[in-house]
């Protein structure tokens, strides 16, 4: 599904990613761990096409297509979704209008008719239940006045609406209490299918206990330095990153 080959990327002239190689197959969940500043968020931003980052070398293929040539919105239409570490508040833009614009843009991209207002609202109602998102929140402006937990639930709700094939969860567990974490993680699991994959960026084992990654990577100084099964996450939880650093 996703193939990253020798990816180098920089921001403001500073190189952050220094040769990333990563392959994600259909149905796999990959965990991406590493210390602050290792380049985890940079990698997710580069995959979704954030304009602040410059790719200086390498390529990203998504289902065989060259992702780096696509605009952020086209990447979204192709099925890539980023659950933001800090979801943005957009005062004055209602969740309904926001989601409808997003969904219909995707449908248009794939040559489908826009959803009728009735069908759209029905879909929203359905998907809201997955993350127990209150109707009141759905009627408000995007993320405006949402608590930290509500914002993250709203991210998973949007994911449910857009049905991406590759989801990137960037520290979706940060700022969540135990109950909110469970709701978000269970919501995510309900959306999983053998055709959908995910990259989960996290510092903690807790989220991974729910999501059960197939593969765990450790990112250090812009490179993936270690790749192993789920037990790697447990080991990092116990021992930190220093022992990996020493291995290098």
């Amino acid at each position, binding site marked *: 599904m996703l193939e990253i080959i020798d990816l180098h990327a920089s921001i403001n002239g500073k190189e952050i990613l220094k040769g990333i190689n990563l392959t994600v197959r259909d149905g796999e969940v990959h965990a991406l761990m590493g210390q602050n500043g290792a380049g985890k968020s940079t990698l997710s931003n580069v995959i*979704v*096409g*954030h*304009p602040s980052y410059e790719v200086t070398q390498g390529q990203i293929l998504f289902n065989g297509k060259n992702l780096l040539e696509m*605009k*952020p*919105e086209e*990447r*979204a*239409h192709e099925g890539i*979704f*980023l659950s*933001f570490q800090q*979801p*943005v*508040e*957009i*005062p*004055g*833009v209602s969740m309904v*209008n*926001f*989601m409808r*614009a*997003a*969904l219909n*843009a*995707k449908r248009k*991209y794939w040559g489908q008719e826009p959803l009728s207002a009735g069908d759209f609202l029905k879909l929203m109602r359905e998907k809201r239940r997955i993350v127990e998102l209150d109707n009141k929140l759905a009627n408000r*402006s995007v993320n405006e006045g949402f608590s930290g937990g509500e914002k993250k639930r709203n991210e998973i709700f*949007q994911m449910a609406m*857009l049905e991406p094939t590759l989801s990137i969860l960037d520290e979706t567990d940060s700022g969540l209490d135990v109950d909110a974490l469970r709701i978000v993680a269970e919501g995510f699991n309900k959306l999983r299918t053998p055709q959908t994959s995910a990259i989960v960026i996290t510092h903690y084992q807790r989220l991974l206990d729910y999501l059960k990654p197939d593969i765990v990577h450790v990112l250090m100084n812009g490179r993936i330095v270690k790749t192993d099964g789920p037990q790697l996450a447990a080991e990092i939880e116990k021992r930190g990153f220093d022992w990996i650093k020493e291995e290098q």
Partner: protein
Amino acid sequence: MNSEQQYIDLYLQAQELICRHSSSLMNSRRQEAFEAFRQSGFPGHQAERYKYTDVAQVFSPDYGLNLSRLDIPVNPYEVFRCDVPNLSTSLYFVLNDQFYDKALPKVQLPDGVIVSSLNKASVQHPELLERCYGRLARSGKDAINALNTMLAQDGLLVYVPRGVVVDRTIQVVNILRADVDLMVNRRVLVVLEDGAQARILVCDHALDDRNFLATQVSEIFVGENAHLELYELEETHVKCRRMSNMYVQMQANSTAVLDSITLQNGLTRNRADVRLDGPGAEVYMNGCVIADQKQHVDNNTLIDHAAAHCQSHQLYKYVLDDEAVGAFAGRILVREGAQHTVSKETNANLCASRTARMYAQPMLEIYADDVKCSHGSTVGQLGDAALFYMRQRGIPEDEARMLLKFAFVGEVIDSIRLESLRDRLHHLAEKRFRGELSRCKDCKLCK
């Protein structure tokens, strides 16, 4: 020839013709206005209230005037369909500067309410007009007042007698219509006697692809306990220049809503001077500006708190794109003795391009010591974080920008009290941002 001279010459040459097609009331103020104009000329950039609009340049092109008041061969009731549906109004037209009375709305206004041409009313109600005309918009105070008073030949009167409530919205559509470049000088007089209530919606349209220059001087009297709502909506085109001066005098416990929406224009300067003359008067002003290309919109307000216990609330929002220029200068003056004044002025602006420019100048002068006042202004750009967030969800960049701009003016549109106008404005603003709001789309003349 400098800009003033052509108007001075015009007046000297055409004085007799101007007077012949006007009323003795309007003629009686002309000479004084002429002297004032000749003395002052157009204000330059150094004039505090004209910093942001180059008046001399606006007036320098050569425009025709219809001083002989030839009939304009059009029945607006047949060619014009209002942009604000579901609004059952009593509909009136002002064609260029002529009140159209060859056909009038069938709906009867309450007894004593007058909506008519100024000249006609000056014959029927000389004492009323003598009491009000030219009393607020003094020629000595402002060159546009002087020029308008010197050249205007007719105008519009809306009069509501004491205690009378006009339920139905009075809608006045100003139509610019000409086969040559044209200057029009409109005059408006609104008088609400004590306890009267009225709602007036004024829409500006231009039917022809010509250069237009419209001056408009409005004098508005709001009596004790009276309630006025006045909505001005401009939907003209890039070749239209509008210089509007509005003077409002409010008596004790009166309220006024004075909203101004500029959706489509060329160059617009709206001056609004509101004097809160009696205790307990309240004024609410909302301004919404959407401008792009090289459009220019300058709103200049003065709220004069001359009595105690008055309130003023202003909210002006601008969205500027391309090379548009916006200006908002709002001065609040709280005079000595105007205790317990509550005054709030908010101006927020969005420059959606690097080349759009906004001049913001909120001003607050307080000479009383027990008041609650605030004023503030912001100028910002579209948020990059929000734009990217929306694009990541698949919303194309243009659409995302449109949604953000629309959201920005949403606040001020939501605060418009006239429901049908509010609903319609949401729709019109969205179309405007999508570039689908072409001029006169509902008008048969242009098809």
